[in-house]
């Protein structure tokens, strides 16, 4: 299939502002957009820059906006897009470092703020932890996240308030809050009970829509809200006693 890639180009060192550049490309059957971009780079313009690694939708490197839709370039099959003009843009809400490469630092910084790691007990239990599979299943959805940044980038709250932690970080926090092996207490994690944390979400579910891994981060945010309220009520009762 003959098509035109209209790619947003920008080199902050050389260019005053971003611009679109067209590349014509003959896509063979089942060609992924990532493979196509590599061909374009190799044959037409060696300065064209984009991130990639696994090419099988598990490393989260190649998120971008393709004909207005957030997705991973590697799992986007060119001839399935049903259009000969393909507009390719970097993830919004993040600064462009070069062409389709954006600065992910704000995304990582937001993640770090939720302390996105298990707080283990002092001792490893002999013969390991006992956790029923149905409990593990509760966190499976969130553990499936590949940190591609689609949700953060598509989030309307992030776009107007850069202090907002964003969907991926909050969903990750929920994954640990639900993990029976985690030892962080309510006072520690409930510090996200703020306008830039769980209460910042507009519940328009853009994150659920754009996630290429069906993590549904908003589910995690909603559940965190419920747990915050529940936790606060419990604290009140404790104090009264």
């Amino acid at each position: 299939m003959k098509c035109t890639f209209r790619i947003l180009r920008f080199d902050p060192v050389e260019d005053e502002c971003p611009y679109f550049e067209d590349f014509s490309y003959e896509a063979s059957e089942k060609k992924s957009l990532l493979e196509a971009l590599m061909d374009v780079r190799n044959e037409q313009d060696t300065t064209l820059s984009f991130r990639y690694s696994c090419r099988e939708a598990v490393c989260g490197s190649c998120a971008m906006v393709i004909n207005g839709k957030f997705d991973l370039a590697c799992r986007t099959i060119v001839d399935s897009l049903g259009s000969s003009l393909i507009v390719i843009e970097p993830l919004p809400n993040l600064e462009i470092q070069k062409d389709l490469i954006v600065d992910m630092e704000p995304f990582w910084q937001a993640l770090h703020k939720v302390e996105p790691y298990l707080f283990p007990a002092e001792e490893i239990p002999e013969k390991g932890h006992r956790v029923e599979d149905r409990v593990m299943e509760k966190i499976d959805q969130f553990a499936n996240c590949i940190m591609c940044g689609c949700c953060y980038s598509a989030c309307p709250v992030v776009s107007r308030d850069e202090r907002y932690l964003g969907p991926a970080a909050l969903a990750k926090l929920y994954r640990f809050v639900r993990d029976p092996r985690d030892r962080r207490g309510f006072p520690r994690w409930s510090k996200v009970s703020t306008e830039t944390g769980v209460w910042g979400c507009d519940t328009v579910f853009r994150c659920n829509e754009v996630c290429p891994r069906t993590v549904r981060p908003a589910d995690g945010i909603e559940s965190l809200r419920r747990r915050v309220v529940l936790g606060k009520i419990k604290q009140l009762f404790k104090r009264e006693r």
Partner: protein
Amino acid sequence: MISHDILVVGGGLAGLSAALAADTRLSTAIVSRVHPLRSHSVAAQGGINAALGNSPDEQDDSWERHAFDTIKGSDYLADQDAAELLCEKAVPAIYELDHLGVPFSRFPGGVIAQRPFGGAGFSRTCYAADRTGLAIVHALYEQSLRRQVKVYGEALVTKLIVENERCVGVVIYDLATGQILPVRARAVIFATGGYGRVYLKTTNAYINHGSGIGIAYQAGVPLKDMEFVQFHPTSIYPKNILVTEGARGEGGYLLNNKGKRFMADYAASAMELAPRDIVARAIQMEIDKGNGFDSEYVLLDLRHLGEKKIQKRLPSVREICIKFLGLDPAEKPIPIQPAQHYSMGGIDVNDRCATSLEGFFAAGECACVSVHGANRLGGNSLLETVVFGKIAGQEASRHLEGLERKEPGEKTLLDEALAERNKVEAWMSRTSGEKAHRLLNRLKLVMSEKVGLFRTKSELEEALEEIREIREDYGRVCLSGICLRYSQVLVNMIEFACMLDLTEAITLGALRREETRGSHYRLDFPERNDADWLKHTLITLKDGRPEVSYRPVRITKYKPEERKY
């Protein structure tokens, strides 16, 4: 100048494990060509082996049995004491991963679930559905955040710096700024992964060019057993994306174009769960005999497992098939063919992960201890990364304990970086010449066609000759018009030189080894020959040429016998 006590190169599982195990009083940093979460370790699907004995009717599993399976699977080329170390440490390693947050799938009662894998006498492979690598990388990366391990992301190491026969640092190409800089380190640990992309058909990520192994070789460190290249039986045709061995572990069948489970002809008792070398060869033989489809593939049939089990145990495989092939494995069999998957060989290290170069350590797929010998069992590579990654971190720390805190000369470091910079500038100033990616494709084609599953003297000789020709052409490649910031083209060009060395070492090792063992199948020498070849191949760069030598295999208590499955 950036300076650390321990510099870990590579942010995948071996690198993260090493950084987490390093002495916290030392300054440790990871430098990685991609963000650690983009490492190829995330693509590991099926699982990680340990003799936990959690499967209800298999509680008598033991690490000794695991060691035996590993050694037999290796076609007796593994160093037996190293394989024993790996398997003994496996059990506490899994409990530690679980304790650090890896969301392993569970059996009723809450213990870690285990599934059968190829070449194993027991259900020994622990898993997190079919995204075990992803789960473990994320958990360890998260713990590295907790420990505030410094990470330099998107920086490609291009050279090891050696002064007075000691490793004192590396040169990096920093993609974001386009700068080429020295990094000083008192100890360097390579955890740079495998070289899958020297083959045209591979399950590996695009980043797996194997340059870490090449850089070590160029610094004079020997490479071991490079001729042993694992071809995974089941990669999706035509994209060669992996379908985990777990798919067969859960009960999947391999079918030829007559609808027959052809493994009955090759491994009557283990069937689809014979070791990978045997299954991959069987598939290729079926295809070559005309029993495949379009002379390219056979089928992996999961339909009888039912949609529910496929969705629960193999969700990523299902997702990949739907997304990349437009095919639901619950409804249709998956077209599969063998593809390069893993490098058994690598940087020669001992079981403390030390190399012949003082202050330089290696772990994971880039290293060869050897625990996998001539054929690795599925589920043992993730295990190797966490066990030996940890050992590398501990040993590098211990190495520094006894070392006086003398800073290596700044001049050597700056000079080496300058030399690298000059090399790049020379490439960029050339105005005409062949494009590097086309030349690289030629190299990959040679490897896939002549140094693949089945090998002969004449083809290996041809391959060596062609690699040498490509090396000459590489000297004339043109790189004009590139921008130094975020240049994957420059990355590929730098790594290409390493790939030439690696392919030469693989091919030379394969040519010299006149026997068939594990993944190394010589049509002209179809038998294993323990009398002459129960030994490791070592290839060292001496005066610009590869020099081949050998070292005996360490045997403890498992007497080499014929492999039957």
